[in-house]
Each structure stands twice: as C-alpha cells, then as structure tokens.
C-alpha cells in the first residue's frame, strides 16, 4: 500500500470518526463491553470477506429507541438500541450489518483523496485519539450527517447495499432473505420517520431482494439464524438501565 493510499484512508477515517462522534453526541451511546464485542464478532466476520478488508471495523450502539443503523466512512458502524431490540435473530442482525458494511465497501459516502496536508496529521498526533475537527472535516461531516438523517443516499446505493448484504451473509451461512422479514415488520411500525425518509420504499426493497435471491440462486435451506444467542444479548440490552 503506498503512502498516498494510506493517507487517503486516514482522511476517510478522520471524517468517519467525526461523523460517528457527531451521532454519539446527538443520541448518546450504550456502553456495554459484552454487547459491543458480540456486535464486533458478527460484523468483523462479515467485513473480513469484503473488499475493504484494510479497515478495522468499529461498531457502536446509539441510545435511542428509533430503529436505524448508520454507516460512517472508514468502517464506523452505528446501530440504535431500538434496532437491536426489534431484530429477532442473528441472521437479521447480520443482514443489517452487512448492508451497512456494503455502503463502506462500495464507498457510497464518496472517495477520499490524499493530500489534505498538515491538519490531518496534527489531529492524529494530539492526545485524545484525534479529537480535532478542522473546518474541512466539519463540512464533510455536516454534509454526510444531512445525508444520513435527512436526505438519504441515492436509491440505487440502498438497493445495491441490500443485494451486497445478501451476498455477504449467505457466504457465512446466514439466511440471505432475513432482511425481508425485518423490513416487513418495519413497514408496519410507526415512529421511524428518519428511516422512512432516507431509504427507498420498503416494498421496492423487498421485491428487489426476493428477485435477486432467485436470480442468483441464493438458498435459504440449512441457513443458520442463531436465535438463542441473539436472544441472550437482546435480553442483556433490554435489562440495561438507560
């Protein structure tokens, strides 16, 4: 990997980290080491099979009952407590994480370049793990935050991430259509305005995924859902005080 390529990745990490920090400030976070480790197990087993294997994926839990998940550049994935309590099994969790990982893999937040110079490296050198947000990072973070919470990504990006997520999880033995079950339940819920306005219609997504599974021969037989172990962690989260 060339130094220019590493620098471009550092720029991506800086923006992604700042966006994740912005979401953490907005919603608060759930700090439970066992739960976070479990999310890392599932997400990294997916990510190690993906094209952005040079990133060390991080997963955080946002302390909100909204049902949603966010992919920040550089592999910072933020899922909400509401989402984790809504999911029924590990296969559904794997789909959601794989969908977000696919956004990172396909660089749907844009491609980052090297050559932003001085302040990028200064921020990495100060104590506190780079808690510096220069104006360029702040602007990028603001634009991406608006995309995540208000405008949404391009429709084809969301559908691509659904299909890519199915490919990733089927390779691990999960049910490739587990996302459709989760989306069907989401369609009948209220109070998820952020999710609704930032994603294509749920019916379109389900149709696209079902067609893709048939076209690609993605089988659901002998798929694992690991319901029991997911339920253990869901109970842990449900019992955790706010």
């Amino acid at each position, binding site marked *: 990997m060339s130094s220019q390529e590493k620098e471009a990745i550092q720029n991506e990490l800086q923006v992604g980290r700042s966006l*994740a920090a912005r979401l953490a400030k907005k919603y608060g976070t759930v700090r439970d080491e066992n739960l976070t480790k479990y999310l890392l197990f599932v997400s990294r087993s997916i990510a190690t099979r*993906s*094209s952005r*294997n040079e990133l060390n994926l991080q997963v955080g839990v946002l302390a909100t009952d909204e049902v949603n998940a966010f992919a920040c550049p550089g592999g910072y994935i933020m899922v909400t407590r509401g989402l984790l309590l809504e999911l029924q099994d590990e296969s559904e969790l794997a789909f959601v994480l794989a969908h977000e990982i696919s956004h990172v893999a396909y660089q749907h937040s844009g491609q980052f370049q090297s050559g932003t110079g001085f302040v990028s490296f200064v921020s990495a050198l100060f104590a506190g793990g780079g808690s510096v947000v220069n104006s360029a990072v702040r602007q990028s973070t603001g634009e991406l935050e608006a995309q995540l919470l208000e405008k949404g990504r391009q429709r084809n990006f969301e559908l691509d991430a659904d299909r890519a997520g199915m490919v990733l999880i089927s390779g691990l033995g999960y049910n490739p259509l587990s996302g459709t079950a989760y989306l069907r339940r989401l369609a009948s819920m209220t109070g998820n305005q952020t999710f609704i306005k930032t994603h294509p219609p749920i019916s379109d997504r389900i149709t696209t995924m079902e067609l893709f599974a048939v076209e690609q021969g993605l089988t659901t037989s002998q798929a694992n859902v690991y319901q029991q172990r997911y339920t253990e962690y869901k109970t842990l989260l449900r019992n955790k005080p706010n």
Partner: protein
Amino acid sequence: MKLNPIRILCVAIMLLVATAVGADRTMYIQSPSARLLNAPKMDASGPAIARGTAITQTGEEGLFFRVRTDSGTGYVPRLYASAFPPSQKVNFGTGIDKDTAVKARARASNYSQTVAARGISESQTLRTRSGLQDFDFDSIDWIEHVQISQAEMSAFTSGGIPK
C-alpha cells in the same frame, strides 16, 4: 479534406484517457469462499480461488468483476476483491510513513510554540475553534478500545460465544 491538427490532438488525448480509465488493474481476493464463476451469478460454477490470490480485473458487470487469473477468466463478486492484500490493516492515526510523520511533528511543534506564546493551551484552542461540544469523541475512544482476539473470533465462527 484538410485534417485539423487540433482535432487530431483532442481525439488522441481522449483515446489515451479512455485507455487509462479502462486499464486492467490488480486486485486481491478477500473472501475465503470466492470462486472463479463462469457467469455473473452467485450460483454459477467454478473453481475455488484462495484468499490473497492476485487477480486482474478486466471489467465490471453489475455486482461482479470480470477477471483474469492464472487458471483462466471468469467473474467474482465485487465485494470479494480489494485493491489491497488481506493482511494490511490501517487504523486511525497509524500507517503514516516515517518522513511524513517527521514533517508533521515539526509542523505540530511550530504550531504548539505559537499557541503557547499566546498563553492558550492547545486543547483549549482547538476545542473552542472546532466546536467540539458538538462531538462525543470519548464514546468513540471507548468503542475503539473494545478488542476481540483472534482466538475469540475463531470460537465465535465455530458456533460459540467466548465467555
């Protein structure tokens, strides 16, 4: 017909750019379940390709790359290939080459001296100017400090959760 040299030059440049854009590139297989598919479909058949194998991407079809390998041509899912070999990880604040880091430290030192001369602490200045009250980096630091070992990951993928 008289040939316009400027038009010829423009066409030549366009051809060069088109060639560069369409140039083959080396990629590396990331997924342990990758196969060299004989069609751009997940259920197509084909031999397994080992993780870390270098392949040449010659085109794209939807979610698949057209590729060339030592054992022939075919397709792999775009998600299964990367421009980098599997082992190289880049974490935030690392992976910067020595010369760049030295120059950055020299600049940081100059900045610190300037700030100190004005009687303001570095972190105070940066926090005030950058509006850090809008960000929760403490939580991100906490997230990044949660680690899992390779042994724990192996236990997980074989169906158990490490205690």
